[in-house]
C-alpha cells in the first residue's frame, strides 16, 4: 500500500471524486432547507416575523407566524416551537395547535418553527436523522429533524466567545447561534440575534399575555419534564403544575434563574408584559447517552443505552424503554391547555378559550398523527 504513487493524474482523478462527493452531499444538504408544509386550521392568518421587525424581510430567518383572532375580546397567547429543531415535541405541539385550534375567545398566535434556518440543517457529529415521518389519515406526514443552532452558513464565522449584548455574560462562541441565548436580541447583529429581537417586538406589539417556548431536554439533564416560569408567571405555573400532578402527568416547576441571561423564560418576562413559560420534555434522540441514532429513535425514544442508564439511576425522567413523540407532544399540548384554561384566573380580561385540542389520552391512544391533516408534500413524491 505504501508504494501507491501519486501523480498529477491521480490528483485529477481525486478532484473529480471530490466534485462528485460535493455534488451528491450538497443535494442532500440543500434539500433540507425546503420548509415542512403545514395545514393551518380555519381562521388562522399567516404572517412573517418581518411583520414586526421589517429588517428580517426576505432573510432566511423570516419565520412564519399564524394568528387566529376569535373576534371575542380576551387575552392573547403565543405558542412557539422550533427554538431548537432537534427537539421535535416542541414544534410538533405547536403544529397540533396550528392544525386543530378553534379559538372562541381572545387570540392565539402560533410560530411553529421559530429558528427557521436551524430547521434546515443538522449539527455535525450528532448523526441526527434529516427527517421523520408520522402516519396521518390518508397518508404520511414528513417533518425535518434539525439542529440546535442557526445554520452556520448564515452567520459564519462564529466568534471565539459569545458575549450577550445586554449583560456582558460570556458563553462559548457556538452559543451565539443558539436562539435561546439571544434574547432580548440585537437589531443589527447576527441572524439569531435579529430573530430574537423580532420575537420580542412581536410579544410587545401584540400585547401577548402568556407566552410559551417549547423545548425538549436530554433525559439525563436535571431540568426535564419541567416547567420553567418567570417570577411573574410563577403563581399560574404553580396552579398548572398541581393540576398536571392530579392528572397524572407531572411536570416539575422550576424558577427562571435571574443570573443566567439570554433565555426566553428570563428575557421575555423582563422585556414584555407576557407571562413567560418554557417547558421541557425528555427526548432520548438528543441526549449524550443515546445509542443508535435514527428517525425511529426520534419518534419512539426506544433506546437500550438509555435503558441501561436508567437502571444506573442517571436519568431525571422515568424511563421504561421508550419515550414516544406522542407522549412528549401530548405533555406539551395538555400543559398549555391547562395554562390557557387558568389564565383568566390570574390576569383579568386575559381569558383565552380554545376548542378542538385533543386530550392527553386521545393523543396517547391514537398518536398525534391522527390529529394532523394530510398535506401535499412535493419533497417526497412517491414516498
Amino acid at each position, binding site marked *: *500500500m*505504501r508504494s501507491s504513487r501519486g501523480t498529477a493524474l491521480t490528483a485529477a482523478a481525486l478532484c473529480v471524486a471530490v466534485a462528485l*462527493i460535493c455534488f*451528491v*452531499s450538497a443535494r*442532500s*444538504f440543500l434539500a433540507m432547507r425546503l420548509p415542512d408544509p403545514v395545514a393551518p386550521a380555519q381562521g388562522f392568518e399567516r404572517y412573517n416575523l418581518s411583520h414586526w421587525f421589517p429588517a428580517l424581510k426576505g432573510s432566511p430567518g423570516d419565520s412564519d407566524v399564524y394568528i387566529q383572532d376569535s373576534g371575542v375580546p380576551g387575552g392573547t397567547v403565543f405558542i412557539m416551537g422550533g427554538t431548537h429543531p432537534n427537539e421535535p415535541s416542541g414544534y410538533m405541539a405547536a403544529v397540533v395547535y396550528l392544525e386543530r385550534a378553534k379559538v372562541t375567545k381572545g387570540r392565539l398566535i402560533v410560530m411553529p418553527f421559530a429558528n427557521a434556518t436551524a430547521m434546515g440543517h*443538522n449539527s*455535525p*457529529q*450528532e*448523526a441526527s436523522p*434529516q427527517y421523520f415521518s408520522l402516519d396521518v389519515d390518508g397518508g404520511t406526514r414528513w417533518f425535518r429533524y434539525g439542529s440546535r443552532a442557526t445554520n452556520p452558513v448564515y452567520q459564519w*464565522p*462564529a*466568534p*471565539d*466567545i459569545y*458575549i450577550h449584548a445586554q449583560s*456582558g*455574560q*460570556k*458563553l*462559548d462562541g*457556538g*452559543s451565539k447561534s443558539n436562539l435561546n441565548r439571544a434574547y432580548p436580541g440585537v437589531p443589527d447583529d447576527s441572524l439569531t440575534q435579529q430573530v430574537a429581537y423580532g420575537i420580542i417586538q412581536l410579544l410587545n406589539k401584540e400585547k401577548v399575555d402568556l407566552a410559551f417556548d417549547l423545548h425538549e431536554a436530554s433525559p*439525563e*439533564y*436535571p*431540568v426535564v419534564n419541567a416547567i420553567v416560569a418567570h417570577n411573574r408567571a410563577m403563581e399560574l405555573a404553580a396552579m398548572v403544575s398541581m393540576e398536571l400532578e392530579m392528572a397524572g402527568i407531572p411536570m416539575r416547576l422550576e424558577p427562571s434563574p435571574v443570573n*443566567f441571561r439570554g433565555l426566553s423564560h428570563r428575557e421575555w418576562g423582563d422585556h414584555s408584559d407576557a407571562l413567560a413559560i418554557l417547558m421541557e420534555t425528555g427526548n432520548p434522540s438528543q441526549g*449524550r*447517552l*443515546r*445509542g*443508535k*441514532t*435514527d428517525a425511529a429513535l426520534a419518534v419512539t425514544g426506544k*433506546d*437500550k*443505552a438509555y435503558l*441501561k*442508564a436508567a437502571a*444506573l439511576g*442517571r436519568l431525571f425522567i422515568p424511563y421504561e424503554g421508550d419515550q414516544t413523540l406522542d407522549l412528549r407532544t401530548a405533555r406539551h399540548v395538555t400543559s398549555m391547555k391547562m395554562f390557557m384554561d387558568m389564565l383568566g384566573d390570574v390576569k383579568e380580561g386575559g381569558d383565552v378559550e380554545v376548542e378542538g385540542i385533543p386530550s392527553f389520552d386521545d393523543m396517547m391512544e391514537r398518536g398525534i398523527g391522527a390529529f394532523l391533516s394530510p398535506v401535499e408534500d412535493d419533497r417526497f413524491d412517491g414516498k
Partner: protein
Amino acid sequence: MEWFWPEGFYTLLMIGVFAFAAFVWDMPIAVAMAMAAITGAIAAGEGVPLRHQVEGEFGYVDTILIIATAMVFMKVIQRTGLLESIAAWVIRKFRGYPVLLSLGIMFIIMVPGMITGSSTAAVLTTGALVAPVMMELGVPMLQTAAAISMGALFGMIAPPISIPAMIIGAGVDIPYVGFGMPLLICTVPLAVICSLWLIYPYVRKPRDEASLEAQLAKMSRVPMSLRLFLTVIVLVVLLGGERTLPLYWPSLGMPLSFLLASASGLLSGVRWNPIETVTEAIDEALPVMGILMGVGMFIQIMTLTGVRGFVVVSALALPSWTLYLGIAISMPLFGAVSSFGSASVLGVPFLMALLGQNEIVVASALSLVASLGDLMPPTALAGIFAAQVVGEKNYFKVLRHCMLPALLTVCWGIAVILMAKPIAKLIF
C-alpha cells in the same frame, strides 16, 4: 452480552480497522480513520452514508482554518528570521537565572494557548519560538518537545479561554463565568512542577560558553528591529484586543488575525516568497487537518451506529469507586479522537454523575483531564506538533517523556474533583 452486542462489536471493529490500516498498511492516519468509519457504517447496515461522512467533517471546519493560518504565520516568522533572533535574545538575557528562565519559558509556551484556547496554537507559535532556545540551552530534544506539549495543554486549559471547560459547562447550562480561579488552580501548580522537572535540570548546568556564543551569534544574524517584530506585534494587538476589549474590538477571529499578521511580514524588510512559504505551511499542516477530518467522520459514525452511547454508558456504568478511575482512563483515551470531543462526549455525563460537588470546579478539573487527549496517539495534536517543532520524527519517543507529567496531571485533576467543595469555599 446483550449490552455488548452489537455496539461493542462495532467498537472493536472500528478500532481494529483503524489500527490495521494505520500500522499494517501504513496509511496516513486521516485515511485510516475514514476507513474505520466507513467499515463501521457498513457493518451496522448503514451502507456508505455519504451525508454523515461529510457532515462529520464539518465539526472541525473552523479548526482546520485556524491550523492552516497559524501554520502560515509560523512559517512567515521563520522565513523573516525573527524566531531565531528572539531565541538568541532570550538566552542572553536570562542565562544567569535558571529557575526564572525555566518558569518563564513555560509561561511563554502557555500564553497562546491561554488566549486562543487551542493547544495547537501554543505549540505552533511560542512553542516553536522557544524550542531552539531550549535546545541551545542544553535541554535534550525529547524533553524540549515534552515540555512544549505539556505547556501547550496547560495553556489550553488555563484562563481566560478554556474551550473544553466551555464545552462541558454548555452541556449542563453553566455559563462560562467564574472559571478563572478554578482553572488556575488546575493548571498553575502543574506548570510549575513540569518546568522545574523538564527544563530546569538542564538549563542549570554550565555549558561551553564559547560554543554557545558562536551559536547565538549565528542565530541573531538578522538584527532585531521594530519592523522585524511587526508580525508578532500585529498578532498580539489583534488577538489581545479581541480578548481584552471584546465589546469595542471587532471580532476578527483567529484565522483572519493570523493572516493579517502574516501579511504584515511582507513589510518586515526581509525578502521571502509568499507563495512558496504558504505552500510549505499548508503542506506541513495537511496531515493534522486531514486527521481532524477523519476524526469528524469517525465521531459521526460512532454516534450513528450507537458506538458512542455504548462507550459513554459503559463508562458511566463503572461502580462508584471506579468512577474516578473511569474519568482518569476514559477521558484521555477518548481524547485520542479529540480532546474537545472527549470534553463533550464524556465530560458532560461525568459532570452529571458528580453533581452536588461544585460544578464549576469539577468542570474545570474534567477539562484538565480531557486536555490529555491532545497527547494521545493517533491524533495527539499537541504532541505530534511539538515533535515536529523540535525535528523529532517519532512521536512515541516524545510521548515517553510526557508519561509522568501526564500521570501527575490526571492525579491532580482527580484530586481537584475530590476537593471541589473545600476549593469552592475558599475561592467563591
